[in-house]
């Protein structure tokens, strides 16, 4: 199995405060990992560091993606290399249509891969197929990026972008939060439809319920900036029953499983 992502002893600060205190994680192609953890444990920081969001200082450790030093790449280079982050809070960009935005993104990636850029007609044909996956109406494409979208629409739009851009490594940052059960199913269906032997996914989530629909290969618990416990699907169920308290307690005392 090919290792897609290899994180070693990753430490990072935000605003002078250490958030990630030595993360180790390996994700192989074809796998789906879930990273769970209480609020403030560093889940979103990890997603931000992996995609190159500004405002973090990496103090130690390394991240290899397909054998390359991921941290040396700019955010756009990471995206073009196939790393995708579904945002916890998708940003509204008034003035740019969803369609124009997505075509620019897709063509930037295609250009990077040495593929021909798609014109509006070919792009539309591709997009129409993907729209069905996430149950998005076509008129949403003409509207400005995320502007005036409902919470559910925004999250679905993230999954839709993921479906169009076909990344190799998908990071989903709390994509399930704030969704009703129907929207959650749509998101889960989108994620499941994209599972493939070449692709890996890392789902960052607070709750177990998304994992009811997306069956992860591995589950990790992040607490106080470290992965304190790893296991399979059962670990998530255990967390759902018992909460995070027992694990946080264990993390504080320094015991790792």
């Amino acid at each position, binding site marked *: 199995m090919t290792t897609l992502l290899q994180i070693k002893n990753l430490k990072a600060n935000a605003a002078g405060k250490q958030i990630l205190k030595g993360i180790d994680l390996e994700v192989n192609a074809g796998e789906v990992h879930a990273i769970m953890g209480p609020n403030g444990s560093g889940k979103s920081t990890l997603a931000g560091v992996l995609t*190159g969001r*500004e405002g973090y200082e990496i103090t130690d450790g390394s991240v290899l993606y397909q054998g390359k030093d991921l941290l040396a790449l*700019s955010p756009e280079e990471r*995206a073009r290399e196939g790393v995708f982050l579904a945002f916890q809070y998708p940003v509204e960009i008034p003035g740019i249509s969803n369609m124009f*935005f997505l075509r620019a*993104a897709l063509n930037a*990636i295609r250009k990077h891969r040495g593929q021909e850029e798609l014109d509006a007609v070919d792009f539309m044909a591709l997009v129409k197929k993907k729209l069905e996956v996430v149950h998005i109406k076509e008129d949403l494409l003409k509207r400005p990026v995320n502007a005036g979208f409902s919470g559910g629409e925004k999250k679905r739009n993230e999954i839709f*972008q993921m479906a169009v851009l076909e990344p190799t490594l998908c990071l989903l940052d709390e994509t399930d939060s704030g969704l009703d059960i129907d929207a959650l199913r749509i998101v889960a269906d989108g994620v499941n439809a994209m599972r493939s032997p070449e692709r890996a996914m890392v789902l960052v989530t607070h709750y177990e319920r998304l994992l009811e629909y997306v069956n992860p290969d591995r589950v990790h618990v992040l607490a106080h900036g470290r992965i304190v416990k790893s296991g399979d699907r059962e670990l998530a169920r255990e967390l759902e029953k018992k909460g995070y308290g027992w694990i946080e307690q264990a993390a504080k005392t320094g015991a790792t499983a």
Partner: protein
Amino acid sequence: MTAAETSLARTGFEALWAAKHERVRGREPSWLLQARENAWALFAERGFPTRADEDWRSTNVAAIANTAYATPSRSLDAKAVQAACASVAVPGSVRVVLVNGRFEPSASDLGAPQHGLTIESLSAVLASGPETLRGHLASQRSTVNAFSALNAALFEDGLRLRVSGRVAIERPIHVIHVTTGPGAFALHPRLVVEVGNGCELELIESFVGAAGVGTAFTNVVQDVRIDDAATLRHVRIVEDAVTAQHVGMTRAAVAKDGRYASVAITRGGALVRNDLYVTLDAPGASCALDGLYALDGSQHADQHTTIEHAAPHCSSTELYRGIVDGKSRGVFYGRIIVRHGALKTSAEQENNNLVLSNEALVDSTPQLEIFADDVQCRHGSTIGQIDEAQTYYLRSRGIGADEARRS
């Protein structure tokens, strides 16, 4: 600018005027000579506007006033002109090329005649039947400031486009204004556009500098007349060289149920000022004015628009958007006048700006003057900066930092 500087600047044009006057006296009909003399007198009296002038508060034209311009070169670098035309070509259009303000048949491609459409160079009309231009040239309707007065006094050539017989002209007319040649020179092209009853026309104008062009000062005037139930779609794209100065005056009068749709795009030029004055003269007349200015470096572009609702039941929409980067400055001044008695007027105006650098500036002045009751008018203006979260979002999708900032 001091008064002394202004008068000094005028002397450069005085020599040009003296030469012009000499050339046209006895050749042109007396009413036209009279019109030129009146226009010159107006210019000589006013001089170039200064920033004390309310209408020129945001735009300093000292760079124009202080330059000694020659008349443009008549010799033609055919290759450079061709390349400039190719860079702005609109597929499927009728191509009409003006080089340094003069109609250039060798660079134009008029194609097969289209029923109802007449394209003529202004100099040819002046030679063959100047009387038909009297309505436009003698009325001085478009002579409203120093620049348009200068044009009225000095214009050499230009175009007249006429559509009649209730036809819709299928192929758009693409007028390419090319400037070419070294040094500083001024040109004063003039366009007369008449769209007859029930006719439709699309006119695209590109202003472009050929490779190696010096400091070209284009001072263009356009007289547009749209008759009953006629439609003109008018696109103007200023893509002049970075050294260019461009002043334009477009005066459009729209008759009953007529429509004027204007798209004004400014990307090039060092100093650009475009005035667009639309009069909705009879019930049912409408206009849609759209504009985009995208500026960088030390560019300065000023768009002045006036929409005059002179009759009841007319409607207008206006949307101008600007993007300024570097040390550039964008100016939008949009005035809507609703005359007494222009009941049931509907007017919407919006100007949105994006400022991409700390040193770029935008002046936005929307202005409504309403003298009638029972009207619906709305205007608004925004100036925004792109924020980091938006830039990061675009970048995280593979769109480059620079591109993200610009998109």
